[in-house]
């Protein structure tokens, strides 16, 4: 077996050193009834690289990929071009096969990268600090709600109707067990976001308002009045960014005085991968760092006075505080954070802004083109690279039909909100730098045929 270096002679010799007659002697503490003596039911014997590759490739070929044709899906996961060097660098064994940097003297590579990542994320989100990553955007979001509860000592969170429904579901699951009261709503196919409604809902029991920016329908709105309204009631504003490329074109939530900003970092450096692994971004104002979940990397000096980095503020964490920790998170998304950071370093501010401008311009062209189709209405006034159109007919079967024509047309709101009839005609369309004008034309033509 190619991954097991011990030879039969080694095993024999080692058993001798141990003083055991056979390998079974080492499993003597396992009760007889629990021992599995026969082969594993149905599992074949070991297989060559070639054989396994053949099996996996056959499965992979059963999927239609984002690169196979015109592609317009978003809603929390976006297709962007990732420079070739990113994937090469994250596969360096010293990054790929390292552990969490518990021994900082021989983990400065990971630690310095995390320090750079934290700084990049904080600057993008407009927060004072950021942590070393969470699992993904949805779990970062509910961790932020828990953080707001601890800070405000209040238990009512108001979730915007524009928050990704999976993020709402995750928060709802967790709230059942933490006792938080959640105020939720379903979005409507209007150009305006629900900020005015949210402002009216804030009361003295409110721990936080959670608002997505851009929201699930791609809409954007100034968060400043909402932040002011939250702060007037001593509640926190949590902003959720599922498309970080937008930060190259629009003001960050932190600039609009959000207290905690979380995000899904997948767009930068991390591929679609059918939903994971992704990388959760989480930043906040300085005064809240001791309530943050997850790991922090901090700067310090070594015994010789040289700059170095360590994991720090770990008295918040489970391995020190156990049941009093701010979160149970241990492993996070280190390698995805590395991919994010490398891609961000390649882009730089100039590149991120150019990338964002290209995304926005392409989305504007696509919105104009699609809204010229008879029966199609553009819902958004404002958007970044994703917008919603109302097809006037149920969108989900149309998406299904277009897939047969090789076009992945977007995310139907029927997929995300199957119980909301009022949303069934909505289609969320994302346009990135990978979308060509020919792709848009193909979508427009096919959509027109379906609607005719």
């Amino acid at each position, binding site marked *: 077996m190619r*991954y097991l270096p011990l030879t039969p002679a080694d095993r024999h010799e080692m058993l001798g050193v141990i003083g055991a007659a056979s390998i079974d002697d080492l499993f003597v503490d396992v009760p007889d009834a629990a021992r599995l003596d026969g082969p594993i039911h149905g599992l074949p014997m070991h297989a060559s690289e070639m054989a396994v590759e053949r099996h996996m490739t056959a499965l992979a070929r059963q999927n239609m990929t984002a690169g196979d044709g015109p592609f317009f899906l978003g809603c929390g996961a976006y297709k962007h071009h990732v420079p070739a060097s990113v994937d090469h660098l994250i596969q360096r064994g010293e990054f790929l096969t390292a552990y969490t940097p518990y021994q900082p003297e021989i*983990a400065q590579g990971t630690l310095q990268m995390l320090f750079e990542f934290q700084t990049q994320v904080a600057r993008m989100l407009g927060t004072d600090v950021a942590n070393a990553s969470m699992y993904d955007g949805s779990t970062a979001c509910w961790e932020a709600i828990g953080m707001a509860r601890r800070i405000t000592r209040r238990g009512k969170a108001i979730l915007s109707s524009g928050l990704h429904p999976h993020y709402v579901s995750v928060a709802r699951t967790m709230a059942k067990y933490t006792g938080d009261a959640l105020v939720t709503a379903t979005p409507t196919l209007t150009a305006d976001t629900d900020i005015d409604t949210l402002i009216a809902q804030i009361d003295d029991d409110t721990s936080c308002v959670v608002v997505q920016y851009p929201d699930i329908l791609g809409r954007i709105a100034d968060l400043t009045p909402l932040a002011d309204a939250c702060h007037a009631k001593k509640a926190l504003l949590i902003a959720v960014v599922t498309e970080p490329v937008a930060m190259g074109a629009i003001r960050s939530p932190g600039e609009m005085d959000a207290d905690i900003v979380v995000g899904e970092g997948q767009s930068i450096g991390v591929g679609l991968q059918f939903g994971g692994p992704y990388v959760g971004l989480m930043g906040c104002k300085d005064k809240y760092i001791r309530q943050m979940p997850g790991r922090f990397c901090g700067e310090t000096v070594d015994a010789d006075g040289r700059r170095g980095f*360590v994991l720090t503020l770990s008295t918040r964490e489970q391995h*020190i505080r156990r049941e009093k920790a701010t979160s149970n998170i241990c492993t996070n998304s280190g390698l995805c954070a*590395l991919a994010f950071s490398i891609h961000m370093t390649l882009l730089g501010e100039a590149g991120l802004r150019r990338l964002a401008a290209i995304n926005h311009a392409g989305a504007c062209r696509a919105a104009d083109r699609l809204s010229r189709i008879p029966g199609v209405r553009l819902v958004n006034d404002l958007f970044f690279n994703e917008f919603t159109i109302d097809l006037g007919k149920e969108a989900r079967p149309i998406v299904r039909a277009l897939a047969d024509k090789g076009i992945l047309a977007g995310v139907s709101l029927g997929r995300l909100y199957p119980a909301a009839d009022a949303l069934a005609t909505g289609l969320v369309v994302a346009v990135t730098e990978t979308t060509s004008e020919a792709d848009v034309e193909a979508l427009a033509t096919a959509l027109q045929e379906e609607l005719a």
Partner: protein
Amino acid sequence: MSINQSGWRPTSPDAAQGDVPASFTGNKALMLEERLIFEIGSTDTTGVDFAEGDVAGSRLGNLTRKASIGLPGLAEPEAVRHYTRLSRQNYAIDLGLFPLGSCTMKHNPRLNEKMARLPGFADVHPLQPTDTVQGALAVIHELAHWLVTLTGMASVAMSPKAGAHGELCGILAIKAALAKRGDTDRRVILVPESAHGTNPATAAFAGFSVEDIPATDEGRVDSAALIARLGPDVAGVMITNPNTCGLFERDMKAISDAVHAAGGYVYCDGANFNAIVGRVRPGDLGIDAMHINLHKTFSTPHGGGGPGSGPVVFSDALTPFAPLPFVEKQGDGFVLIEEETAGEHHASSFGRMVAFHGQMGMFTRALTYILSHGADGLRQVAEDAVLNANYILRSLDTTLDAPFGNSGPCMHEALFSDDGLAEGFSTIDIAKGLIDEGFHPMTMYFPLVVHGAMLVEPTETESKAALDQFIGALRSVAERAKAGDQALKSAPHFAPRSRLDETLAARKPVLVWKETALAVAAE
């Protein structure tokens, strides 16, 4: 530059530093210092080319960004060099034995990486129509099948993102099951003292109070104390098996039976499943829920701290409460059951834990690993992991104190304590000494039930020669610690950094780069 003042090893490179001037760059040949991107990059530089031409767009309203973000860029050659230089300051399993107990640093097969990068897996959106992703759903279903088979359980939830997230999944299922039968007075979860910190943190998050269960002198759960504590207020237990002392919990089945008889549920922390895969099925031990760290037992890379993946297997009793989404086979194809489509068939599910469907990129790797090893290989994995750990235990138990050396064979890891070291010397000195010997240290000061614990897990992917070299190195460092060699107190001497000031880092946190950060830290 550090100067060796101890006189230890006069022929070592460090000792010669007094005669050799520091280099102009601060570099030492292949050991290259690297500044931060904020010090070497510029906001005007980019390493990515875009299409030329004007880009027009005006749907941003008054939200158009005006202020600078402050993100430095590097041209591709500089970026590649930056990260390559950083990588060389890391220890990694690719460089040598990485005996971090309970973390299971085994070789990461590169075929797994290649398979995960097939466009059919890597370039697929989670919200595509499900008939365009049948291959992806098939991978999830196939991996789920083998996980259920290997553990002897009834079902598996694939979506948890890592081990701790899997623990939460299991505990929430227990909570949901208790709620379903109206048994809401059970507020206590029993957790052995030797447990991972994630166990009590998880139970507390779910609203349970946590009570410690002591360990016996032989390093196992005190099953008499545990069983005596059971009662109408106990929701369940969280037991790690094999445990964090490296021992198999012989009484596991009896504990499970007693917990069930008392109306509770049994959660097993499966972090150490690698020791028993193919040899023991946790389902035969009466377990109700157990997470499996794909990044441990099934070799997906740790990547410097993740991503992980923590599927949770369930007993029949807890299966109805498993989270959504999950994949079901219907006819010739696979369907994705999400909360909106679960209907009455899955009415008791406790809900969704995560956006989308879990760590697909880890599923492809883990499935590749399972198929590569096959039934014979997986069994050999457990046997070699246990053999290697016992070889280390018995090769060193005359040099180092092995507190549970008489408790029977160890499983996947060998536990030592700092008992017997010279006055003022502890586990950390041995760990830092090992760094100079070219090894990553073992897990330090865990589990908490042993003073100065050193938890050594070699895994099955080490050769005997590698083990012998490690044993020799650890023996040498241990003998120095017993003899009071002061040079150990300032180790490591040969690493990119000497011991780092963790107190300063926590007292004056510098978590993001600022122009003044260095000056502040050096105050």
